[in-house]
């Protein structure tokens, strides 16, 4: 190995047992910055993780996949030991001194983040809709559209054409608002229990008017309640053409 750099995965509140670290890979170690801040680190080779080398390496999709999956796997395993504040990939320092300085500057907010995510897991709740079914439901429940549809039905072809154009302009926003309203309504109960939810926007995920993703920070004790709540509304949502999936748990990437 040439010059060694420090790769940081994230912060935990107490040192992770050596036995666990050794299972996660070679050269992983606890680095205690204070009695409440422990950074989980790995010594990595500058030939691979140095600035120029890394810019080359990330062009190799297979290499990148291996690295990001390992990053995620380590963080997910650490979650079983206690709260984790995950770092973005790649967080690399030239020395422990530099790492110490960087952490010292934000140690209060890191400690607060650890407290905030303690006992919680991040889940993704994704709602998707069948466009035609959702449009039919939304249109039938919107007074303006119902009136417009009735007017189109009794109009001659010229006027019906113009009204149809007006309808086309209106329908997209009606459907979007209706979908968003249904999702917010479903998520209102978990929010009332103290669960934090926020829109999840991904860099690689396809954005779509018929897909709404939420990142939710859910205390472990409430995970089953949230799942049951969604299940209880499944049939009602299904009638509107809306389905949901729950993915996770993830380290709390969206809440730190």
């Amino acid at each position, binding site marked *: 190995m040439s010059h060694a*750099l420090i790769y*940081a995965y*994230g*912060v935990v509140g107490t040192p992770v047992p050596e036995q666990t670290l050794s299972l996660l890979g070679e050269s992983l170690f606890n680095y205690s910055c204070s009695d409440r801040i422990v950074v989980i680190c790995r010594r990595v080779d500058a030939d691979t993780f*140095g*600035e120029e080398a*890394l*810019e080359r390496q*990330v*062009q190799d*999709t297979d290499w*990148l*996949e291996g690295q*990001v*999956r390992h*990053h*995620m796997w380590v963080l*997910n395993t650490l979650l079983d030991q206690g709260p984790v*504040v*995950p*770092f*973005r*990939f*790649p*967080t*690399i*320092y*030239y020395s422990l001194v*530099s*790492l110490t*300085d*960087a*952490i010292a*500057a*934000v140690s209060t907010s*890191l400690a607060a*983040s650890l407290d905030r995510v303690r006992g919680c897991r991040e*889940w993704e709740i994704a709602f998707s809709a069948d466009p035609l079914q959702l449009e039919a439901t939304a249109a039938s429940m919107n007074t303006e559209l119902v009136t417009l549809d009735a007017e189109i039905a009794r109009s001659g072809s010229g006027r019906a054409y113009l009204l149809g154009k007006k309808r086309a302009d209106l329908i997209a926003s009606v459907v979007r608002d209706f979908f968003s309203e249904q999702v917010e309504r479903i998520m209102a109960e978990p929010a009332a229990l103290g669960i934090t939810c926020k829109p999840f926007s*991904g*860099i*690689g*995920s*396809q954005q779509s008017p018929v897909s709404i993703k939420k990142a939710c920070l*859910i205390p472990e004790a409430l*995970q*089953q309640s*949230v*799942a049951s709540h969604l299940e209880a509304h499944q049939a009602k949502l299904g009638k509107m053409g809306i389905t949901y999936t*729950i*993915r*996770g*748990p*993830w*380290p709390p*990437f*969206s809440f*730190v």
Partner: protein
Amino acid sequence: MTAKDEYQNVSLLEVLDRVLNKGVIIAGDLTISVADIDLLYLGLNVIVTSVETMEREKAKKRSHIS
């Protein structure tokens, strides 16, 4: 919501969406610090796009097979 085994099946895009796009960035005085991660990040966005294309192709092939 106990299906931890689901994690094994998550797509690369889902992982990238988190490890590259979320999580804490700690500023340092190093060459590879926030600004440089941002530079890398531009390159990574290009990769994400190609991964996206790759996954769509895989999905198409799967649907042809089934």
